[in-house]
């Protein structure tokens, strides 16, 4: 883990950390409520009272942006781990028998045959728009990714000598899998977790842009950005807040993933 305390890993952690702290503490420091409609404050430019201006429904953009970070973090920190767990469970199951493996591989093949965003769009069409949908979509998108990863890692580790040794001294199949194979198969998952977090932020934003994201009037990075798109000519600065925060967040996750990947050698 020392890869995360220096170089680009550290930069990545700091970037993610700054955004996370802004999302956790920020809403407490802003005097406006993200849902509050302020009289006579339609699409104002930046000022001391509203550093990022106000939106089309007279709400303070900074306060919506900071609360939006919370929503994005909540979505990613719920949906990605759940998807990873389900995917890993299915992937581990596949290594039990070759018949199961064929079935599971076909299942992953089909899910991966959909371009990620197209799968997201298709699922959202079925379950309807909204915050829960965004979470479900991210979870489903991550299942085959983690499933494939864990399956191949398990298959690789199972060939290792220490596993053969554990089997030879009479360890049962489940015992060997749980105490020897699985713990040693988790390493590649760390890299993928960081990547998947940035994919989650991407999918949340993309679904908002396409009008199937977080349910209004709730704020999110994507929701604030999408509103600002309609007023680029009128108030170009409106878009800068969500753009900058989204960029910093995904770059941070990307750098963490790169550092973790490089550390694996």
């Amino acid at each position, binding site marked *: 883990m020392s890869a995360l305390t220096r170089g680009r890993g550290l930069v990545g952690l700091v970037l993610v950390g700054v955004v996370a702290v802004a999302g956790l503490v920020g809403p407490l420091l802003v005097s406006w409520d993200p849902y509050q409609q302020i009289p006579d404050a339609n699409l104002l430019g930046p000022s001391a009272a509203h550093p990022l201006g106000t939106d089309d429904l007279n709400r303070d953009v900074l306060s919506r942006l900071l609360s939006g970070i919370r929503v994005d973090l909540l979505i990613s920190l719920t949906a990605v781990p759940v998807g990873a767990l389900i995917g890993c469970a299915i992937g581990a199951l596949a290594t039990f028998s070759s018949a199961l493996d064929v079935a599971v591989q*076909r299942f992953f*093949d*089909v899910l991966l*045959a*959909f*371009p*990620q*965003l*197209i799968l*997201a*769009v*298709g*699922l*959202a*069409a*079925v379950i309807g728009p909204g915050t829960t949908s965004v979470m479900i979509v991210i979870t489903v998108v991550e299942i085959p990714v983690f499933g494939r990863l864990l399956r191949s890692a398990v298959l690789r580790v199972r060939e290792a000598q220490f596993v053969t040794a554990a089997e030879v001294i009479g360890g049962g199949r489940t015992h060997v899998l749980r105490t020897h194979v699985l713990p040693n198969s988790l390493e590649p998952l760390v890299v993928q977790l960081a990547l998947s977090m*940035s994919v989650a*932020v*991407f999918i949340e*934003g*993309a679904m908002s*842009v*396409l*009008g*199937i994201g977080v349910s209004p009037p709730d704020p999110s990075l*994507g929701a604030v*950005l999408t509103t600002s*798109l309609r007023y*680029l*000519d009128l108030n*170009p600065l409106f*878009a800068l807040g969500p*753009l900058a925060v*989204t*960029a910093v967040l*995904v*770059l941070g*996750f*990307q*750098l963490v993933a*790169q550092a973790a990947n490089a550390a694996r050698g």
Partner: protein
Amino acid sequence: MTGYLVRRLPSALIVLWLASVLIFLLIRAIPGDAAAVLAGADAPPEAVAAIRAELGLDRPVGSQYLHWVGGLLSGDLGRSFLIGGDIAGLVADGLANTATLTLAALLLAALTALVLGPVWAATRNPWVDRLLTGFHTASVALPTFVTGVVLILVFGVFFRLLPTGGVPPAGLLDRVDITAQYLVLPAVCLALPVAGVLTGFLAETLRGELRQDYVTTVRAAGVRDREVVVRHALRGALPVAVTALGLQTGALLGGAVLVESIFSWPGLGMLVEQGITRRDYPVVQALLMLSVTVFVLVQLLTDVAHAALDPRVRLGGRR
């Protein structure tokens, strides 16, 4: 060649078949009665029944599926609930725009990777290396909607240099120079992530090739650096890069939906968006199937191209 295609074809077909079942069942799983929704809240039962019969919803599920797939195979994509008309017609309208955008982006991404990949792999200048590392990280990480909005802000709002939305009023084929102006921002936006991934991938594969014994031999024979990379290492790295390109079509297809929405580019992506927001399920169903088919076929084609370029893959099964 043909042998390899024949070996790979069955699994591609199975994936397509399973995907068609999945899409069909997903759309069927939507709660509520489509016919009742279409007929309106206080429509008489006979009207609902008529609509149901017209849509074929009164038949058994299996027969509906066969009817749908049979239609797909004969080029009949079904009828739209709300937008109106034949889906095949709607698709034909948007296809030229989407194909132009996607192919332009693909070309741009491939060219960028072919130039930057070898430079990055071969450079000994730390600043060039840092610059390309930065380009790679940013282009891979930044979502298309972020780069798209930044492009619009820079080239359309702060400096009014380029049109930021729509297609040329007189059509794509009227004047190439005007079309290029409309095309450049969306195409760059769509191409960036793909260009980043491909550049990184090509550079990494090239670095691996440059460590091979044959490269040392060529170098020892006195061949110059540039020639070593372009003539020898690139030839070894290309087959793998072609496969990576195939996988990136997925990013292009998904990205096109977003880019079309941001730049108001009237193609299939906008049709998908309309289909979802207006809950026009036959349209969504047809376009999902279309994009999966394109994605699977392109991957199959790039696998075949990989095999054609690399005899080890082609003969792999016979070893």
